[in-house]
């Protein structure tokens, strides 16, 4: 292979890493939305507002990455919001009530979250429980456990630096929580595009039997995917705890729906096998910018709900339309 060929190939794979193939529709939508809000408000197009939006999407962004993995293999995870609340309560209990160092509290919270995901995955693969049912059950169980830890009360009293990690902007723009989110995005994109493990998810979502006959360990991969999704929910919970400087068991109610919406807006098909993290990030940004913009436009809260619903319908309809045309 000549040097120019190598160069060309590297260039193309670089371009691929930053392209959002399959999500061009949503990307155009996002850009139009930004232009519209820039014209309609004086406060939208500012560095500070941009940073606010990043702050505001951390939890949804990380959760939606996990949800993308699950939906790519043709599954669904309804338990992410509850698992997040459970992880938050474990974090608060270990750090504040039991007085353990933060690092142990974070490890404990992630372990509990991961375990919840592994159990869902195990039920789905070994007992053939449909993913919808298994994670619906986990949603209820995790929420109940989260409430049991403190009998329904919140926990406050984290060390001061914990909240500061969500407030102090290092280098003038990057809070620790946003940095974690960006790291998750980069790792997820690299995994999904360039690791054999990432490509396998597409095979499983496209047709699990073909994947199995192709030598892919479908069961193990499925359990790992649900575990990762729950781990990411736990991580989102830790960041949310930092942002709110408190934890409460009623956190994250209906977050699974936001996460699913972001994934779907980003062009990942609910039947699995197509889509990707790049699209999901755009989906998350669309929801984040939309919420932020509607607040800036002073749109009534009731109308906001209607608009977000319309955007979901629009995104999915556009994708279906594109499919039919091609």
């Amino acid at each position, binding site marked *: 292979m000549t040097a120019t060929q190598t160069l060309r190939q590297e260039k193309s794979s670089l371009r691929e890493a930053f392209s959002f193939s399959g999500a061009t529709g949503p990307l155009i939508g996002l850009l139009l939305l930004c232009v519209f809000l820039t014209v309609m408000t004086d406060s939208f197009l500012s560095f500070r507002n941009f940073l*606010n939006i990043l702050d505001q999407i951390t939890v949804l962004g990380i959760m939606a990455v996990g949800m993308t993995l699950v939906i790519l293999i043709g599954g669904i995870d309804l338990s992410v919001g509850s698992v997040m609340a459970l992880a938050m309560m474990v974090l608060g209990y270990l750090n504040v009530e039991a007085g353990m160092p933060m690092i142990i509290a974070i490890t404990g919270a992630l372990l509990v979250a991961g375990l919840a995901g592994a159990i869902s995955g195990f039920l789905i693969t070994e007992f053939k429980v449909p993913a919808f049912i298994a994670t619906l059950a986990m949603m209820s169980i995790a929420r109940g456990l989260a409430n049991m830890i403190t009998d*329904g009360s*919140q926990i406050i009293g984290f060390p001061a630096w914990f909240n500061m990690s969500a407030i102090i902007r290092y280098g003038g723009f990057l809070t620790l929580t946003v940095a974690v989110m960006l790291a998750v995005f980069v790792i997820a994109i690299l995994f999904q595009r360039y690791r054999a493990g990432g490509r396998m998810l597409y095979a499983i979502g496209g047709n699990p039997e073909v994947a199995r006959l192709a030598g892919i360990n479908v069961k193990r991969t499925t359990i790992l995917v649900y575990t990762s999704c729950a781990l990411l929910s736990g991580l989102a919970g830790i960041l949310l705890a930092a*942002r709110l400087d*408190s934890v*409460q068991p*009623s956190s994250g109610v209906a977050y699974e729906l936001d996460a699913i919406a972001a994934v779907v807006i980003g062009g990942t098909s609910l039947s699995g096998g197509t889509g990707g993290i790049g699209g999901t990030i755009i989906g998350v940004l669309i929801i984040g910018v939309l919420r932020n913009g509607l607040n*800036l436009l002073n749109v009534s809260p009731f109308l906001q709900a209607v608009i977000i619903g319309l955007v979901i319908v629009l995104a999915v309809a556009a994708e279906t339309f594109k499919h039919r045309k091609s």
Partner: protein
Amino acid sequence: MNIKLRIAAAAIATLSAASPALAAEVKKVGLAMPNLQADFFNQIKLGVENYTKELGIELIVVDAKNDTATQVSQVQDMMTQGIDAFIYIPAGAAAAAVPTRLARAEGIPVINVDRQPDGAPGDTFIAGESVESAYQVCKYIIEKAGGKGKMAIIHGQKGTTPEVLRFEGCKRAIDENPDVELVAQQYSQMWSPDEGFNIAQNMLQANPDLKIIFGQADALAMGAAKATDVAGMSDQVIIGGYDGDIAALEYLAKCDGPFIVTATQSTQLMGRLAVDSAIKVAAGEKVEERQTPNAVLTPCEDARQYVEKHP
């Protein structure tokens, strides 16, 4: 009580006459609501809305739908829009201190209404006098029940300021009547009528000889009243509520049902008070750390007048 209210109203009237000069300082006010489902909050919102319109102040309202994280994001966006004062009703029990800190960072007044975050107080805290009023409601229903019998309490969202204080007041009335036995207590999540219905239904099932129910909000009491009707126990049970919601007052005005008394909060007045306090703090004036507009004990015979004009 009525006289007291009139005095308060007069005081407000004087204040508002004096305020236009100061209002030049406050052009834009942000109001963060925990939810817009409860009539109690809607009334506060109406009070703020009407009053800011009168004064020519721009108002931004956001609804957190009971989610603390959403509320933090919304407050961030408010700050971006450059508000001059912040009226803050925390969503959820965690009563996150973060929005207060955000507003402090902008150097603008923070007025808390109904709920106060731990460890991060605003410039003033406006909330109905809960303990005394709850004591009066419970005392009233216990008396009506003949000073004895089994009693149940339907709490609001666990750990919130009103939940804690209303329980404190009611407990005092119970302790004064040794023949009253508190047999059941349960917490609701949303202070909503359907929760009140379900909780009361279970309580009546478990305690068929229950005589007294205190619902910590009118919505809960209304749900409990419905459950009592369904169980065919409306002749045996006496129910008290709290807040003076419009729907509850309309129900009470008929004086025909188990739910017979509430404490009407001056919700619209609280809204106006919040705006006034904001203007004062911005102008560098001193305001009371704690402002407590009284709630008025409203037996069903008195309910009619408040339906016509809510305080």
